[in-house]
């Protein structure tokens, strides 16, 4: 964990926490400002979840981490390989958390992340199971349930992203779901009417306007303005040589016209690295009409970085601070909304997620 004061010039490292384990996601509860959940796994042991209320001085393991329901005798059940995504519940529901897993499942905790229950409406639904696909249909380390998003105006209104399987919406706290796929493209040659072929990478709701959603998809960058149910491919306005493929999507905390992405090479062999080895963040200030390249301070050449979908985020300062971590173990920070960048850590293990919290 790295900490700084409001100036964000000097950063102090603390750790390591969970040496030898993969931390897929670690999120502070914004409702109490002190409960921090970490979804952990190792290459050899099963996945689990840890919780701290003293910023990592002591960690306590969840009594019941996310786990699928036991299959009836004679049937083959699924087992959680890792918890991939964590989302605190609505402000009106203290101690409620949601988790997305690999293989894909949605889970809910009502006691601050200590006990987790599966969502049968998704996890055991034949149609959703078909859309999720099997092990070989997902991303290289398994299909992901992610981008669990709660409407800040209504705890019953939720969105999820399934890689693969598409974007889905619920208006009844997750009891029933419906796809939200109009306007989204899929890989050439596949049928966009089949949710199986949709791969949203990261979906974000604008805190300043929850009717506006942005999405970084396997096939482009999109925006949706409710109450319409159609995604508009705003990534078409990105420079052609860069393209509009990537993993993370970052929204401005106060301005729904401003977002940032970190494009990667989604060309013929999908190296998932910065296009031409020239890393850059791209920002729009007009909801996707035009994009600006922001790479002042980043390497100009021969930097083949990959930034995963939870590994780029913003703080809520003014000007907004931006942060991203690479799979090669660097953390880069901008204190001025991306105008310039500086490195605060090198030589870390692979970075899966970067999150910020104001304490």
């Amino acid at each position: 964990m790295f900490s700084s004061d409001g100036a964000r010039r000097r950063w102090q490292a603390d750790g390591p926490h969970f040496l030898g384990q993969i931390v897929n996601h670690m999120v502070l509860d914004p409702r109490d400002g002190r409960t921090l959940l970490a979804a952990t796994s190792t290459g050899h042991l099963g996945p689990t979840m840890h919780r701290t209320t003293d910023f990592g001085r002591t960690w306590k393991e969840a009594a019941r981490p996310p786990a699928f329901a036991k299959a009836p005798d004679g049937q083959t059940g699924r087992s959680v390989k890792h918890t991939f995504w964590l989302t605190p519940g609505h402000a009106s529901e203290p101690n409620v958390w949601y988790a997305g897993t690999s293989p894909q499942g949605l889970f809910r905790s009502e006691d601050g992340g200590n006990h987790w229950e599966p969502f049968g409406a998704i996890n055991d639904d034949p149609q959703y199971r078909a859309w999720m696909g099997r092990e070989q249909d997902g991303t290289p380390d398994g299909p992901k349930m992610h981008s669990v998003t709660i409407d800040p105006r209504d705890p019953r209104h939720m969105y999820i992203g399934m890689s693969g399987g598409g974007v889905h919406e619920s208006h009844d706290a997750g009891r029933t779901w419906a796809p939200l796929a109009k306007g989204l493209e899929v890989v050439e040659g596949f049928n966009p009417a089949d949710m199986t072929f949709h791969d949203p990478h990261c979906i974000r709701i604008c805190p300043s306007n929850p009717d506006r959603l942005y999405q970084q998809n396997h096939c482009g960058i999109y925006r949706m303005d409710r109450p319409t149910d159609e995604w508009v491919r705003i990534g078409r306005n990105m420079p052609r040589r860069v393209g509009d493929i990537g993993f993370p999507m970052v929204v401005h905390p106060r301005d729904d016209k401003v977002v940032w992405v970190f494009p990667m090479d989604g060309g013929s062999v999908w190296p998932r690295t910065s296009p031409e080895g020239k890393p850059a963040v791209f920002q729009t200030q007009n909801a996707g009409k035009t994009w600006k390249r922001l790479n002042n301070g980043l390497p100009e050449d021969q930097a083949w970085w990959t930034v995963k979908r939870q590994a780029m985020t913003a703080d809520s300062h003014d000007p907004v601070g931006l942060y991203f971590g690479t799979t090669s173990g660097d953390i880069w920070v901008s204190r001025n909304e991306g105008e310039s960048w500086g490195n605060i850590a090198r030589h870390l293990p692979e970075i899966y997620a970067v999150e910020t919290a104001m304490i």
Partner: protein
Amino acid sequence: MTAQVAHPMRVLIPTPLRSYTGAREVEASGGSLSEILLELDRRYPGFRFRMVDEQDRVRPHIRVFVNGEQVFDLQRALQPSDAVHIVQALSGG
């Protein structure tokens, strides 16, 4: 209460699981591997789920040996004189 319960057997713990037990060897009682693991999980909460998944399958990189013989069936009956070794099968790189 059975004779097995009265005579606990030795269980060797691999290094990745010693954060739970605090020891390389513990004693546990039970008539089967399943019972042994449930007892260890009661004493060391979270222990069992790290090595056995929610479908009661031993996880891919975990191996269990009884008196030197590899065992895959958690219902395997045990005698008080048996020695149980839990092993993490290292892999990769």
